[in-house]
């Protein structure tokens, strides 16, 4: 159609979804490849669930097309699509045992009883719940319920697995554990999977690719590494991890004057001309802090105005000594902080490595 990934398993083009006057999805286009694990990530209300429900046919888009395995499913009802789904609430049938929940989709497939039992056992083994098969959902823990829902969704061997915040109802420990389990299971079965989450850690840990969404738009589609290291917009930089935003002005030699000092930025910034107002982003952990300049190019002197102890590292707020008063954050490992005798009021030397400094047109930050 337009060159992007002709072999995509799921091809979404120009999806727009309106609820009355409110536009929940704006011209969303996206490819998901066979066997891929994709996460929709974004703040609350950005349209993640809406997009997932459109893919499932539960709330069909206003405009736009969806192809799955080469078939146009844009207007098909859920019952005529090929997917398994796990909701945030799990929606387990309370009056059926675990085994019957898992086998629910098989029973109407004219499968022999024995065959169903076999498949159910297999699935329960897969999610490690063999011993719970005769319990009711209400008798299970949240994590176990979640796995039952997963097994039920996989029972009919769907081509696409949709997960809407499957882990958000669980407590932190269980969440981290299940995160790995789901990921391993997905790799083992190889089912194409889309998971909605607003937890960046979850997305970074699980996804092959992350779709970052904001107010109905897709901001960026990249691998977890790239989303983190090369955010295409201040929104993405801000949403994932922690970032310093420093306002500045482009100078004639391609460097940026910000916070009263001159900063060099890597990457291609030819889109900007001298005098343009820009915002530079640099992650606190990428800021190099040393005791003295050591003759490094582009480094400058700062005063430490505040130190926060955050467990495995220290986050200090620094202000360029000969700057305009604007400060930023730098993260130091505990070890490094000790060596530098980090404390409030101390004067240190800082370098913003050009490779980690990204420049955006000013005003893109919310």
């Amino acid at each position, binding site marked *: 159609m*337009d060159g*992007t990934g002709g072999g995509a398993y799921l091809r979404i083009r*120009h999806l*727009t979804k309106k609820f009355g006057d409110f536009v929940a999805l704006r*011209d969303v*286009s996206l490819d998901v490849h066979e066997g891929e694990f994709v996460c929709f990530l974004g703040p609350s209300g950005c349209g993640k669930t809406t997009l997932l429900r459109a893919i*499932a*046919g*539960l709330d*069909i*888009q*206003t*405009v*736009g*097309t969806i192809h799955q395995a080469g078939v146009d499913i*844009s*207007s*098909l*009802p*859920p*019952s*005529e*699509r090929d*997917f*398994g*789904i796990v*909701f945030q*609430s799990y*929606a387990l*049938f*309370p*009056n*059926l045992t675990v085994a019957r929940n898992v086998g*629910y*989709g098989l*029973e*109407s*497939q004219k499968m022999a009883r024995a065959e169903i039992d076999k498949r159910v056992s297999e699935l329960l083994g897969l999610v490690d719940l063999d011993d719970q098969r005769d319990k*009711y*959902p*209400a*008798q299970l823990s949240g994590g176990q319920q979640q796995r039952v829902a997963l097994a*039920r*969704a996989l*029972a*009919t061997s*769907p081509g696409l697995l949709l997960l809407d915040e499957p882990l958000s109802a669980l407590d932190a420990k269980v969440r981290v554990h299940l995160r790995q389990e789901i990921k391993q299971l997905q790799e083992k079965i190889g089912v194409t999977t889309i998971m909605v989450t607003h937890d960046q850690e979850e997305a970074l840990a699980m996804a092959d690719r992350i779709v970052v969404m904001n107010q109905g*738009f897709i*901001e*960026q589609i990249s691998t977890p590494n790239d989303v983190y290291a090369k955010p*295409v*917009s201040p929104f993405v930089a801000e949403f994932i991890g922690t970032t310093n935003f420093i306002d500045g002005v482009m100078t004639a030699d391609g460097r940026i004057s910000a916070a009263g000092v001159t900063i060099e930025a890597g990457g291609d910034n030819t889109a900007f001309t001298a005098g343009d107002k820009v915002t530079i982003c640099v992650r606190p952990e990428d800021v190099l802090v040393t005791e003295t300049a050591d003759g490094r190019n582009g480094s400058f002197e700062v005063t430490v105005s505040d130190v926060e102890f955050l467990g495995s590292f220290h986050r200090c707020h620094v202000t360029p000594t000969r700057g305009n008063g604007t400060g930023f954050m730098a993260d130091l490992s505990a070890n490094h902080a000790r060596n530098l005798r980090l404390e409030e009021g101390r004067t240190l030397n800082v370098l913003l490595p050009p490779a980690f400094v990204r420049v955006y*047109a000013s005003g893109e930050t919310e």
Partner: protein
Amino acid sequence: MTDSAATTTAPASAPTIKPKVSSEDWIMRAVLVGIALYLIVSILLPLYAILSKSFKDVDGAFVGVANYAKFFSTPALFWSIQNSLTVTLICCVIVVPVAFLYAYALTRTCMPFKGFFKGVALIPILMPSLLPAIALVYLFGNQGLIKSWLFGYEIYGPIGIVMGESFYVFPHVLTILLISMANSDARLYEASTALGASRIKTFFTVTLPSVRYGLVSAFFVCFTLVITDFGVPKVVGGKYNVLATDIYKQVIGRQDFEMGAVVSMVLLLPAVLAFAADRVVQRKQVALLSARAVPFQPQRNPATDGLMFAFCGVVGFILISILGVAAFASFAKFWPYDLSLVLNHYNFDLMDGGGWDSYFNSIELAAWTAVIGTALVFTGAYLVEKSNGFLAGRAGLQLLCMVPMAVPGLVLGLAYVFFFNAPGNPLGFLYHTMPILVICTVTHFYTVAHLTAVTALKQMDAEFEAVSASLKVPFYRTFFRITVPVCLPAILDISMYLFVNAMTTVSAVVFLYSPDTSLASVAILNMDDAGDIAPAAAMGMMIVITAAAVRLLHAILTRGILARTQAWRKR
């Protein structure tokens, strides 16, 4: 967005996606339309028939507002409006505060025997409203036991109506107040106590405001029930005419159907207004409830608890006495001269009114109403709540389901006469049969049953249907395997409600029975009319016993089901 991130832009006029309607959706829509048609035929068309009748003369010629002009120029007729409003408002002023205190005692104090008092308060629900009126006659009538207590005033008239109606509507008003009190948030009380507010102050600053919508709603329900009730004024109204009895008199006594239609329209108006106002208030109350409200746990307070116990004791005593008098009178040989107990009055076959047959007809009617009504109501509510798309159809059915509540039984019954008995109506064959009684009763009590079903369905996970669709399980399979079992307690509630109401109702069916389909409640009316008041009381007791038995059966069934399914219901 920066343009670098944009892929190809959308075609200028991309077509709007038209969701494909699956065959299952078509089935659901067809059933939904079917139920909507049922309601149109069973309520809208009859209402239209009675409305148009009120603008016609005996020969069916259109006469504009002539009938209304006649109504308003006949003092005997339009005074009924004032009479109706007077007794109704007096009832509201008495019942709402009494029920409020009763509900307060049940929910906010540590008074003893709460379960007993809750049960006692339900006594009136088991009776046709004719029966408490008959009991009043035995107490305060010309030969009444305690006639002197009225200081020479007569029970026949406004006094009797107010007393009888107060008894009859008490449980309905109480139920609404109990719900609204049970829903209030304990955290407000903690806050109030923590701030050092006294009990009295807490009552006025926390309790009252939190139940204000419940109070308003209780008022409207009381108003509607009293102004549309026919049983009490029929028995103890005497010469004091109210709208409900006027309709009956015009139609049955004077055969003036047109004037019956006019009075019906006049009665319909306040009922509809009260209903509409109540819906508005109910909606607000729902919004007021926060999902995280903490249930209130009352604290011991000997003074308050004791006072409330005394109050509930008095109210409970009155409720039990009325039932007791009716029961006693049904066995007393010759009130008040020979009070030895005999079973003579239960020998209904010796009296006019249809004999025992009418009792069994009532059972038959109630059973059919419960079975057909429950199936219809639950299916309708399911389709309104859980089907896909077809928003207009679902909203339309929801609206239709609300109409019956606004229509007084007498108006509905008379409307059926005009509609089904009209020459040329292909449904005319139903007239004077058991099916028309069933249709009328199902429709009469449709709204409350529907709302019960909707509440139960709303409590189910919204995604069961989506999960089933993704698993390619047909919706009807999930309906029978999941929805119905999970909602079984509510389904039992609905069928019990329909059964008991079908047993006790008089107003809607009084115009529709035939000699072959006479009903127990109608028999009470006719025996009372004929002066056979003891047999009337006896027939009333038969209804009470039956209704009580059904309630008991319902309680046992519900408990059994909850016990058996406890493994998956607890949470």
